[in-house]
């Protein structure tokens, strides 16, 4: 068990998502930065779909009641085990009674905590990813007991720190494909999309990231159709909205661009006001 002493800003259990239930209006969900959550599981020799704790901006305080091995990836939130700083991207033994805490955010926005064997929380529709009205809770709360397996063998063979591509956190480049309504844009609108920097708005969550800069347009709304995580919608008022992992299954705004999978993960590590630059990929 892991007892939640403090919840942090928004900490939520996620695997890689809930697939095959869009026809019921159920979003995919899953780790916002799937790239980092896979690394955390890989370091521990877990299945890459095992459930991890996604920690956003401000970390929780967690008491381990059973011994295990953990790995933290993604954002650097100055993690400490029993008040001693620990490394990211490395397997770390935790004894029963160990307290994991976090401090200052140095880079990135979301940190991933994997435990040996993954978090053993309830699985609904083939996934442990938390989402309102699908799972009982959409985030962890003070007093929660998170179920984990007790690691029986307590010797770590692989002691190496994994080298993570820091470009994932530093690069401004977000790679996109043309979206289904891209051709409705004028040449000058297309040029504006790729020749200027955009920045992440304060309005960002697991459902969507809004961008601060607008793109004037007079595109008509579309007949409600399917949308996917990574789709960039353009609203009549010119707002660009990047849909993220918890996005609705359908929408009525023109879908002008679509992020590739790695860029969704990359954008998930951007803080409000951080700059991005869109780069068009040919399909």
């Amino acid at each position, binding site marked *: 068990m892991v007892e939640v002493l403090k919840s942090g800003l928004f900490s939520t259990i996620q695997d890689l998502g809930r*697939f*095959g*239930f*869009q*026809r*019921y*209006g*159920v979003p995919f969900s899953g780790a916002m930065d799937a790239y980092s959550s896979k690394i955390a599981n890989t370091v521990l020799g877990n299945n890459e779909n095992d459930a991890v704790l996604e920690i956003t901006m401000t970390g929780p305080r967690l008491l381990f009641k059973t011994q295990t091995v953990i790995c933290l990836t993604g954002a650097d939130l100055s993690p400490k085990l029993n008040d001693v700083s620990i490394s990211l991207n490395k397997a770390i033994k935790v004894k029963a009674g160990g307290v994991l805490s976090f401090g200052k955010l140095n880079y990135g926005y979301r940190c991933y905590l994997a435990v040996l064997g993954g978090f053993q929380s309830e699985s*609904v*529709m083939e996934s442990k990813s938390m989402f*309102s*009205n*699908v799972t009982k809770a959409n985030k962890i709360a003070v007093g929660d007991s998170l179920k984990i397996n007790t690691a029986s063998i307590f010797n770590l063979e692989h002691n190496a720190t994994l080298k993570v591509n820091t470009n994932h956190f530093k690069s401004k480049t977000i790679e996109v*494909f043309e*979206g*289904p309504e891209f051709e409705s844009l004028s040449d000058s609108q297309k040029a504006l999309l790729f020749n200027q920097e955009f920045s992440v708005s304060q309005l960002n969550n697991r459902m969507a990231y809004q961008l601060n800069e607008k793109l004037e347009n007079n595109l008509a709304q*579309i*007949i*409600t*159709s*399917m949308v*996917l995580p*990574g*789709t960039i919608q353009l609203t009549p008022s010119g707002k660009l909205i990047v849909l993220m992992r918890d996005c*609705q*299954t*359908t929408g009525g705004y023109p*879908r002008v661009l*679509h*992020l*590739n*999978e790695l860029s969704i993960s990359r954008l998930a590590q951007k803080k409000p006001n951080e700059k991005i630059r869109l780069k068009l990929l040919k*399909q």
Partner: protein
Amino acid sequence: MDFNLKYKAYGECSILIEWPNEINEIILEDVLIFKNSIANNYVKEVVEINNAYNSILIICKFTIDNINDEILALKSIYFNRKKVGHRNQLLWKIPVCYDAFFGIDLEEISAQKKLSKSAIIKLHSQAIYTVFFVGFLPGFLYLGGLDNQLHFPRKSSPRMEVKKGAVAIGEHQTGIYPNVSPGGWNIIGNSPIEFFDVSKDEPCFAKSGDKIQFYPISLNEHKAISELVALESYELESEVING
């Protein structure tokens, strides 16, 4: 009749198929027949095939290497599609309490539209609605067939919290909020039944192509049905409408 369809790559793993820009049941019928044919004949491993009013999205398990090959395969499936193995369509009878306790916007619609509340209830419950698809929220049905006389604009500022089961009108659409959520539609009643139940094998009873009809119930009946629903012993009425 064959429609002129558009096929587009959508992201790394998905293919979008689009019909002409219209909402009608002829298109829905063709969408559902093609969707069924894809499910039966498309060789690529798919995660899910989903549809909306005039579109199908095929989400593949792996990255699509050559979109043109996939489009050719899909076109061939379209031209050979047959209306076989199409699931029976059902008409679901949905109880709705239109009492002022739930129907908090009935008064305003009545005043603006110069229609009595009982006329609104009659128009709303005599129509047979088509379920086009489920989207927006888990268990939210996109319904077609609202009487023109009941079209009513969305509220200028949405409510922060709409009750679970709220039956509402927004522009030319009517729908039921499957769970508590913010919402900008005008609330005319409440249904005590579950529109999304994760504990069931089929979390939503209604599917794309099914029909829905509402019938008015009293506050007491609403309470009684709610209790049965909570005990999981309420049986929703339905009938097969096509063979």
